[in-house]
């Protein structure tokens, strides 16, 4: 009986230590905001949590896009918000008129933000438009926004956009089916 209890205790200690170790090596900037409404493109309120806890795309085995700004972002005071239904975005990724990701609150520097694209996504060439807005007194300083296309949480390709003299980063991120692994099944290491 004592032997069984000892074995169980050792297992609990071993697993507990492993869990504690995994927690300790997790970088502080990996706090992730995951969006629900992964495939429909509808904008849902951001919810904070660990990356692996809630994203629906992961369960669906699909694609997702990750945006990481090197500076603090905040809602854009120069946004057009005419009907009152749409709060100004701090960070936004869209594909044509389809909103992939909209963050209206502040996001800490280096905190990745994730949005799901769904399982059947990488079938054709796609282009995203992304923008992030820094506080106004950031004008003149350089900030970057890294965009990564992920499949099953593994990066396929990425692009980095930089500020150009203002407090806003805006640009496009193009992804071909090859990069998305849809035609060949291969995963391209980087976006060219």
């Amino acid at each position, binding site marked *: 009986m004592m032997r069984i209890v000892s074995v169980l205790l050792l297992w609990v200690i071993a697993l507990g230590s492993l869990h504690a170790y995994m927690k300790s090596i997790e970088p502080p900037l990996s706090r992730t905001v995951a969006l629900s409404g992964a495939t429909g493109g509808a904008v849902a309120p951001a919810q904070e949590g660990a990356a692996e806890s809630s994203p629906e795309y992961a369960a669906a085995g699909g694609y997702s896009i990750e945006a990481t700004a090197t500076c603090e972002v905040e809602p854009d005071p120069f946004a057009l918000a005419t009907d009152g239904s749409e709060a100004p975005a701090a960070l936004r990724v869209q594909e044509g008129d389809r909103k992939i990701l909209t963050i209206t609150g502040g996001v800490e520097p280096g905190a990745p933000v994730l949005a799901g694209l769904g399982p059947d996504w990488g079938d054709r060439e796609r282009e995203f438009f992304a923008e992030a807005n820094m506080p*106004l007194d950031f004008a003149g300083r350089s900030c970057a926004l890294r965009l990564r296309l992920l499949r099953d949480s593994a990066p396929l390709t990425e692009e980095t956009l930089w500020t150009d003299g203002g407090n806003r980063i805006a640009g496009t991120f193009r992804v071909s089916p090859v990069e998305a692994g849809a035609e060949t099944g291969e995963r391209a290491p980087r976006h060219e």
Partner: protein
Amino acid sequence: MTRRFLAFLFLPLLILPILLLPLLPVSDASAQGPAAPRESSKKPVVVCSTTQVADFARQVVGGRWTVKCILAPGADPHTYTPTPGDGEMVRSADLCLENGLHLEGNDWMGKIVHDAGKPLAVCAEGVPALQMAFGGEKILDPHAWFSPRNAAIYVNNVVKAISRADPSGRGEYEARARLYLQMLRTLDAWIREQVNRIPPDRRVLVTSHDAFNYFCHEYKFNPTNGFMSLAPVGWSTGSEVGAGMTPERRAEVTESIRRFGAAAVFVETSVNPKLIREIAQEAGVRVGGALYSDSMGEAGSAGETYIGMMRENIVTIMEGLLSGGDAK
């Protein structure tokens, strides 16, 4: 006989398109809504109280509307008295726009628009207004456009009002507004970069009247005065509460110029420069130039648009404070 009968039978088919042809553009135009681009005489009219508001409206409506402005460049909105011609102009309007926050002294715009029974939109609505306290009364500063981020709120309000009046043009108005808002963002970044060249302790801005509170607040001028305007005349050049010049204010400003070492003082294009010139002489500083404040510049001048007005003001302030300081 048969051929003549057939010709008679098909004749209306030949004539009918010719008869219907002139009607086609009419039915097309009616489907485009009240503000669709048509002959210039039939364009809807928006009447604005001030030059800044009129410029924002022009940037949004493009050629779809005729934009008219009551105040001429250089006119003072605080003390303006409307003329019968202004009433006529407002009666021809489909929409009226004003600054609000009591910039239009004694609510002159609201009164003539009300008399004409026209819709009126307030462009400063939603602006985080700065408060000033005078003799126990709190007054909201109406010069909100001096911060480009507030100007963005004005533009949003113009888009809302214009789109409500002409829903068919909404996409066009929003597209223009998006580009213009980017220009305002660039203007703001440029101002910050320019102002950064002035050492913080030399950012002392003395002007004719209290029009520059938002500007000082945004770009950190007058730190010793809580980032608010330094001026001998209050928030209005008229006779409202907290407005006008008092001997105490004049003495306070002269003392501030000496104490904080203002390199120059600035007159305003819409305010009589006599007083500020006297104060400059008393304090022993030079007049740095004329700033656009309540009104923009004449057509064809560098300050005829909002962006041009802000740009010229910054150029004048930089020149006045940097070279003026060196000359002292």
